[in-house]
């Protein structure tokens, strides 16, 4: 890839914890593109799932606080009860605005803000889920020139979320869960070649 990606956004709903665990355990050690992540989760939950993903990964996975600085080699997780947005290329912000698609954090909100800031320099990844959050977001990323990957709905734990995205967008790749980490590793490698 000649394109040099500056960020990855990933979203999932039901089945997501397992999917994230699998993906994050396979990132290569010096993975450098910053990752922003939304997992639908009950408001008021503690951050056990952040620790869970962090333990699986060589990356530093942490819960985002407002205006947190974006660093390479780190993954930032939306806190329960807040939308996570890309403020600019150096920082993230939070909002307590109403739920979107019955969700807060919402995948659409993150993806839309990432598309706006990064244009063709962002990779959007949509995983398993039993609702249609993320479909409009992945379309926005695609429309602004970003790279889009959706998990194969046939083999996803919950198929509705990837299916809804595929129904409205011709994404770049539909991949099995097992293939996603290695694909991202390749795309990250392309970065280093630059």
């Amino acid at each position: 890839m000649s394109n040099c990606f500056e960020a990855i956004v990933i979203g999932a709903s039901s089945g997501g914890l397992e999917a994230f665990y699998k993906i994050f355990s396979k990132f290569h050690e010096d993975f450098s593109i910053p990752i922003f992540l939304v997992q639908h989760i009950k408001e008021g939950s503690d951050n056990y799932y952040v620790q869970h993903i962090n333990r699986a990964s060589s990356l530093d996975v942490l819960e985002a606080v407002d205006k947190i600085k974006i660093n390479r080699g780190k993954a930032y997780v939306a806190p329960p009860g807040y939308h996570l947005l890309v403020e600019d290329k150096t920082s993230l912000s939070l909002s307590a605005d109403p739920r979107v698609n019955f969700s807060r954090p919402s995948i659409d909100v993150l993806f839309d803000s990432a598309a706006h800031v990064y244009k063709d320099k962002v990779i959007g990844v949509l995983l398993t889920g039993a609702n249609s959050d993320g479909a409009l977001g992945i379309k926005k990323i695609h429309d602004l020139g970003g790279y889009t990957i959706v998990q194969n709905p046939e083999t996803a734990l919950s198929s509705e979320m990837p299916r809804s995205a595929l129904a409205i967008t011709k994404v770049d790749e539909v991949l099995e869960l097992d293939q996603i980490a290695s694909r991202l590793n390749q795309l990250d490698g392309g970065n280093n070649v630059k």
Partner: protein
Amino acid sequence: MEDEKKDNLALQCLLDIVEKIYGYDFHEYANASLRRRVTGFMLDHKFDTYLQLADRLLYDEGLFEVFLRQMSITVTEMFRDPEFYKSFRENIIPKLKTYPYIKVWHAGCATGEEVFSMAILLHEEGFLDRATIYATDFNQVALECAKTGIYDASNVKQYIENYNKAGGTSGLSEYYTSSYNAVKLRDFLKRRITFANHNLAVDRSFGEMNVILCRNVLIYFNKNLQNQVLKLFRDSLCHKGYLCLGSKETLRFTEVENDFEVVDEKYRIYQRKS
């Protein structure tokens, strides 16, 4: 010029008009959530561009009222982040009880759910009559709603759960009456609350406070405005006064970081150094 710069220019133009005509300054709001709220409003009201909206707002005061509401809708609940209230009860209340009289400023109180939560907490600690709570917001519609103390009954189950987790010593139902689809908080809770219109982005301090609560408001501001407002809070607190932020807001890396001690890092309770 790139499209993005043009797009930004148009948005700034819209914000200029809002500021100059109506006196509300959104220039220093956080980009991402500001853009989302404005474009959401445009979608609902069928505007294609920032300039179309700006053009209408020039003359249409009625539309501005609706716009302003959209620009400040935040969602809160009674005893939001119950563990914060628990920590406040355990760590702060005993210190406050050493004062004969305290002043509490709830900055950006929106529709007031958290103000009544604090009033209930102070009441249960036998302390409400020695307190004055100033509840302020720049959104008059939200403030009017707060003044009524009337809330949708469908949320009450969540409020009760929160109240219990927050260490409530009675039952939440002690504090409201139900009718139809609404609950009304009991009037005695309001006796010590003064509601007032105050815009953190432009208005000044009003007095020496023992406690300032400003939870999930600063997330809507950019770093500049955050620092400006945090200095306003610092200067509005008495020595050893407490500042309480939202659970994902932090004083770390702000310009007032060294002016405060951390009382509870997890639930964002800070104390002004003397």
